[in-house]
């Protein structure tokens, strides 16, 4: 007995005990084993701390190895007396209580320590981590007295802590530095779904939030964010991350990088010392999940007592252990060259699935709402199986993809029974769709009209089209009458706008989920359109997404071919003053404008301004009373005027004054495309009002309102909407017309192509014949304007979005500061 070599294990956690189990399974008589644990208890399953906190499990239920296991295998357990030093020369360890034990082989399984961000107050009573039984005990004590809890960190661990505390009746706020939850495991779409699901369960989730300090007198009273917000709390859980616990190894002089460096057999730089678990670094990688640990322990045992097999690193997958929220991720989901995304969204069931395929191999998967196939995808990923034969059916899951003898998706659909449900939203079976097709519905739109299939969330559109192909063969034209918005969706612009209103969709990721977008974050075509549709639908609550704006609207200036910008201040109705002109001249000098040009819209354009100088030049122009001219926007541009009855001998009305009034009413309004207005004082039409989106020709008896004109590639003259008698009416009709265009035109349609599509009669019916409708349109326009009429230049000059105008850093390779 005593002649057996002595194996000492430092760490009574999951890795240390599993390694011992693996060794015993191969050769139970090889070593005399002693395990040292810092915690005064037997080995338990640390990943089950979450259910323990949530009250779903008891401690007894999460114990892996009880006292009988240690006794039965002749293992000496020293619990509650941590090893504090390793003497490699003498080959012995010393514990906190002074106990000294010699070893022949030593296994370090010290795991990892939670990372504490060193903000002021991090050492207050009531600040805990989420790592062991003692942490859970502190949290449960806090929960007993109720009140608020703050969890810092919206990763796996933080969300599980938040969930548990929330179930225990606390009001929980999660503070997460990054813009989306679990950003290392989930893509933006899945992160957003998770956030809304947690919010609907009563948690407050603050993303992009940076902790400034934890405040309190002797014990935690709350958390203050860098933006000044304060969140009262009686407990703060730090769950921002973990770092390998390498203290002992480092002090003993072992090779340590981010973790304790080991070879493929988990041997450290000392041949008699091994290491396993979260504390090790293998091939440059450290792991914080449980699955790699099992693989490491197998390789360690093989190397120590059997035939060395070698550990080759792990591919990891993640599952969030929050009851009722199914979240899974595995592999690489960052996309990249040669990667193809296959996305399935089922809004009704709250499902998002994304599988990333590269060279016919699955390289990553993100699943939300339905993780049943997670293991199957993970298996395909680890084995590197060729998925080309099942590519088209892959996203539907294992049952579908490997269901029939053939993986042809058409065969799979053909094989479905007549009562199989195709459209989950409207409960439409395959049989009723086939009947509709046989009855003459030979396009997707026709099937939608007859059966409602694919008319709600649209995720079954592909299936319906396959049924059309099966039933009609080559006769199925495939193309729909109205084209989809872009390649990311099968919905048309009109469908999307209608769904935004009906489903009350407020932000872009929500639209993409509800309408089953096929790409994770859209494209440069649909994102700006969605941003516009949302701001038009919800003027009072819209949150701008600058990254979904074209550069000009993001920068509030016009980009030029050399990357510089041009700046156009507003000149109301084309009227200016000597003071304004002096300020413009000064700005042109000060910021090196290389050209000053009079525009077609009766104002001045300063060319060659650098993006870094924009806030400063805007501040100067603001100081002279000028605001942004929105010359860069899909927005109201200018109101061009002639001098009218004030000066002109032919003038019939005050066209200049009316133009100024119209510009004051309409400036700042975002539109589907640029929008130009002009007011001419007589039919000679010096302001060229008949090629504008909205033009007014003044006559003796009133105002002729002209609509739908533009210059450009396809010149189109205006059509007469109607004639009105007073200035006020001209203003009211103008507002109503703009709002109709804002609400109903497709993004990037000017009024001319929009009117070609809907016809003059339709616009007349809405604006001229329907008095109440016109009044409602006008009221909605003015309501939207109450939010939109803010000078973006003033906001930027005051420091908003400063990062857009500054370099992140500069590299000066030749500037040597203070030597190297």
């Amino acid at each position, binding site marked *: 007995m005593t002649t057996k070599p002595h194996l000492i294990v430092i760490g009574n956690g999951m890795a240390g005990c599993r390694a011992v189990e693996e060794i015993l399974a191969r050769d139970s008589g090889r070593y005399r084993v002693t395990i040292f644990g810092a915690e005064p208890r037997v080995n338990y399953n640390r990943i089950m701390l979450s259910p323990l906190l949530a009250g779903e499990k008891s401690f007894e239920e999460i114990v892996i190895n009880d006292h009988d296991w240690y006794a039965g295998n002749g293992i000496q357990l020293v619990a509650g007396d941590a090893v504090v030093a390793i003497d490699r020369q003498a080959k012995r360890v010393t514990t906190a209580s002074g106990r000294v034990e010699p070893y022949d082989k030593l296994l370090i399984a010290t795991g990892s320590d939670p990372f504490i961000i060193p903000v002021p107050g991090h050492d207050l009573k009531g600040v805990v981590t989420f790592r062991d039984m003692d942490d859970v005990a502190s949290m449960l004590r806090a929960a007993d007295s109720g009140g608020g809890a703050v969890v810092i960190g919206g990763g796996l661990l933080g969300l599980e802590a938040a969930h548990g505390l929330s179930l225990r009746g606390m009001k929980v706020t999660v503070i997460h530095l990054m813009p989306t939850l679990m950003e290392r495991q989930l893509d933006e779409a899945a992160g957003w779904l998770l956030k809304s699901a947690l919010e609907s369960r009563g948690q407050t989730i603050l993303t992009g939030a940076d902790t400034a300090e934890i405040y309190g007198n002797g014990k935690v009273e709350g958390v203050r964010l860098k933006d000044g917000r304060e969140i009262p709390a009686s407990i703060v859980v730090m769950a921002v991350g973990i770092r390998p616990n390498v203290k002992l190894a480092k002090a003993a002089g072992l090779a340590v990088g981010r973790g304790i460096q080991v070879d493929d057999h988990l041997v450290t730089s000392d041949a008699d010392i091994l290491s396993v678990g979260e504390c090790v670094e293998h091939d440059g990688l450290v792991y914080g999940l449980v699955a790699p640990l099992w693989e490491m322990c197998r390789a360690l045992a093989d190397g120590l007592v059997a035939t060395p097999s070698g550990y080759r690193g792990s591919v990891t997958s993640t599952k969030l252990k929050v009851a009722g929220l199914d979240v899974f991720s595995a592999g690489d989901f960052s996309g990249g060259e040669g990667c193809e995304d296959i996305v399935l969204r089922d809004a009704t069931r709250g499902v998002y699935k994304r599988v990333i395929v590269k060279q016919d191999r699955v390289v990553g998967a993100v699943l939300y709402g339905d993780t049943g196939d997670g293991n199957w995808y993970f298996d395909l990923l680890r084995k590197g199986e060729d998925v080309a034969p099942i590519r088209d059916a892959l996203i539907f899951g294992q049952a579908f993809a490997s269901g029939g003898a053939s993986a042809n998706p058409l065969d799979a659909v053909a094989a479905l029974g007549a009562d199989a449900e195709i459209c989950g939203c409207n409960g439409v079976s395959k049989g009723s769709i086939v009947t509709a097709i046989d009855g003459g519905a030979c396009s997707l739109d026709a099937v939608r009209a007859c059966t409602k299939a694919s008319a709600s969330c649209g995720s079954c559109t592909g299936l319906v089209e396959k049924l059309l192909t099966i039933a009609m063969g080559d006769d199925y034209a495939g193309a729909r009458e109205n084209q989809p918005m872009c390649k990311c969706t099968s919905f048309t612009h009109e469908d999307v706008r209608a769904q935004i209103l009906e489903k009350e969709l407020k932000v872009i990721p929500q639209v993409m989920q509800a309408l089953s977008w096929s790409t994770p974050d859209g494209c440069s075509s649909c994102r700006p359109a969605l941003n516009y549709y949302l701001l038009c639908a919800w003027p009072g609550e819209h949150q701008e997404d600058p*990254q979904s704006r074209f550069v000009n609207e993001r920068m509030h200036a016009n*980009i030029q071919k050399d990357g510089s910008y041009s700046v156009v201040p507003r000149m109301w109705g084309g009227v200016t003053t000597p003071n304004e002109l002096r300020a413009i001249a000064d700005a042109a000098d000060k910021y090196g404008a290389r050209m000053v040009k009079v525009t077609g819209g009766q104002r001045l354009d300063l060319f060659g301004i650098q993006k870094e100088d924009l806030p400063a030049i805007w501040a100067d122009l603001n100081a002279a009373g000028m605001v942004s001219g929105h010359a860069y926007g899909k927005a109201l541009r200018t109101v061009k005027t002639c001098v009218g009855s004030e000066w002109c001998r032919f003038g019939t009305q005050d066209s200049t004054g009316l133009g100024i009034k119209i510009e004051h009413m309409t400036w700042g309004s975002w539109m589907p495309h640029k929008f130009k207005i002009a007011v001419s004082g007589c039919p000679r039409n010096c302001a060229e009002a008949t090629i504008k989106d909205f033009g007014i020709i003044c006559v003796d008896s009133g105002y002729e309102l002209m609509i739908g004109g533009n210059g450009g590639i396809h010149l189109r003259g205006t059509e007469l909407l109607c004639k009105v008698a007073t200035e006020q009416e001209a203003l009211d009709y103008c507002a109503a017309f703009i709002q109709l265009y804002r609400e109903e035109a497709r993004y990037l349609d000017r009024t001319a192509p929009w009117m070609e599509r809907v016809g003059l009669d339709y616009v007349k019916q809405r604006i001229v014949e329907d008095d109440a409708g016109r009044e409602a349109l006008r009221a909605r326009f003015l309501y939207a304007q109450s939010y939109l009429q803010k000078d973006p230049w003033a906001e930027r000059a005051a420091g908003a979005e400063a990062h857009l105008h500054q370099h992140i850093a500069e590299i000066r390779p030749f500037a040597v500061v203070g030597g190297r």
Partner: protein
Amino acid sequence: MDAIWLDIGPVEQLPALGARTLPVQGGEEIAIFRTANGEVYALVNACPHKQGPLSQGIVHDTSVTCPLHNWRISLVTGEALGEDKGCVPVIPVKIDGGRILISRAEALAGTN
């Protein structure tokens, strides 16, 4: 000894789905991008088509659309995507401890 990686700042200073610029004295300006997933990439800030500032484009997935003429450029390889042909140099970049590190050698490639 020259550093291999240059620290150019904390990753939070890069907006998700956005970009910032990094001028290099005597060399070509670099654009640093961040995707929705939090990955960071760096390209020379000039479209292979007409030298448009890629930093000002719309970032989607792992590509950026040039603001001048809508060429789509891969952030991973610097190659033009779709029908267009051309390539812009990629500069290795990584995140370590929340800081953005850029490869010194490639960042200074255009200087002399």
